């Protein structure tokens, strides 16, 4: 699908970072709107109606997490967060506040563009619109609740299926431990990370070609998991 004229809002106070983001996104055909402060970013998000926002977590005026909350009050647009390595907590906070994905500084443009593409793909299709998903040898039919690997049916327990479906709804993007636990086991279990460790291993054993080095059901250490599908 073509996102050739998608508009990307960049909320980042460092001009040199805005410069290379503008160049990289421009070359890919995106229209770029730049905001140097958090407040400006919130306003630009309203006036320019971008298709996606890239928000730096360390802004001079507003906390990046607040910017995300404000945008989330009225818009479901995908938000990608730029964070420094020492901001592990802020990163998780931002994701739980509604950001869809993150890139850690310093990052390569290739990595950022891949995240942008995944997030825009996710936004374009309605949340329940995709019923089939392929990755590696595996094929998942969300509508009929069936899974197969290399053409052979794979039996998934109801919880395994719910977990896989939650990851599939955010295909290509990170999903935090908290969100997965809340969606699959319910809010009282939001901190029971060990459930995830065990069920993710079961899913990998059933669906990955090499469960020790999974290529699709990927761990984001300290944050959550990501289902990497074939682009």
């Amino acid at each position, binding site marked *: 699908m073509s996102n050739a004229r998608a508009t990307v809002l960049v909320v980042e106070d460092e001009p040199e970072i805005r410069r290379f983001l503008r160049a990289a996104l421009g070359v890919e055909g995106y229209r770029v709107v730049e905001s140097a402060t958090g407040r400006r970013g919130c306003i630009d998000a309203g006036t320019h109606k971008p298709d996606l926002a890239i928000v730096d977590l360390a802004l001079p005026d507003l906390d990046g997490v607040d910017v995300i909350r404000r945008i989330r009050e009225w818009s479901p647009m995908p938000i990608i967060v730029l964070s420094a390595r*020492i901001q592990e907590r802020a990163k998780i906070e931002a994701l739980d506040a509604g950001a869809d994905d993150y890139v850690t500084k310093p990052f390569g443009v290739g990595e950022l563009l891949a995240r942008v593409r995944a997030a825009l793909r996710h936004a374009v299709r309605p949340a329940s619109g995709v019923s089939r998903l392929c990755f590696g040898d595996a094929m998942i039919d969300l509508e009929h609740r069936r899974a197969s690997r290399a053409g052979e049916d794979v*039996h998934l327990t109801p*919880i395994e299926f719910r977990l896989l479906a939650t990851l599939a709804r955010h295909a290509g993007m990170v999903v935090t431990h908290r969100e997965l636990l809340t969606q699959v086991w319910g809010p009282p279990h939001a901190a029971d990370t060990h459930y995830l*460790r065990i069920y*993710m291993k079961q899913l990998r054993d059933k669906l990955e070609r090499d469960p*020790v*080095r999974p290529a699709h059901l990927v*761990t984001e250490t*300290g944050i959550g998991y990501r289902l990497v599908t074939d682009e």
Partner: protein
Amino acid sequence: MRGRLQLSGYAWSIGAAAVATLAGVAMQARFDVVNIAMVYLLAVVIVALRYSRGAAIATAILSIAAFDYLFVSPRGTFSVQDLQYLLTFAIMLAVALIVSRLVESVHRQAAAQASLAIEAETERIRSALLASISHDLRTPLAIMAGASSSLAESGDRLDPAERHALAASVFRQARDLSEQVAKVLQMTRLETGAMRIERDWTSLGEIVESVLARLRERLASHRVIIELPDDLPLVRVDATLVEQALGNLLENCAKHTPPDTVVRVRAQRRPDDVVVIVEDYAGGLSDADFARLFAKFHHGTAEGVGGGVGLGLAICRAIVRVHEGQAWAERIPGGGTAFRFTLPLEAAPAMPQETAAG
């Protein structure tokens, strides 16, 4: 620990006074009462030398009481007929005070000297660390400045392949530099205790997976073999930190062994902990390098052999330590190194059973 030591000091007071009393009872038929007093004094001095001032005073008082009651007439009472015994009592007490005071001041001096030595050692490590860091930081900066200025000033006269190579080199060096800075920061936080560790149930399999993904390029020229038992229990650790500890060991192996050699990652469950083992099988290091590497790992000093390697090992060790585990290295007979660290096991968390029906 200290509390126990002090209590045992008072136990010794009672013991010493009791032993002196037994000796006095045995002596009283043949020896003068003054000599019995000397035995008590000896008990006071011994306790004062070895235990606290309180214990010494307690010994003196117990000794005075026992001596007075059993040996000073009228016997069987605490009253004193001959007033010169009061002087004996005062001297016993004074000896207890003087000896324990002397002992205390000797201890204080020794402690001061030890802390001076530690300070000097810390200072030495710090300056070695700074020297190695500035070397490790300056090299990539020099490459980045050179490559990027070539691009900026004469990019249009370079052929596309060269341009690309220069740009890629800036990117690679920036990444490495960022890793180095993160390591220095981490070491500082670990050393100053500013690191808050966030424990959560974690799978070692996932940690290994994410290390391999993060270090894919750096390990590309090595054959990495993973051997994790299928029933490896979950550990309650800070996953981000343990991932780094393991990553630093793997980076170290990759750096010190020739391409195409094997690096093996294993884990073993033991009754109280899990041992994670990273082994390489290439004796590429000279004995002297080897000794230095081991020293760094075992003592946690952070001097770089180059490329921030020493820092990586020191961080690994510090991370394992904040998790109450142990880290050590062994030489593998026939060439190679085995780095091992342990992570303590906790009782496995409850896991609801899911009915197999689906």
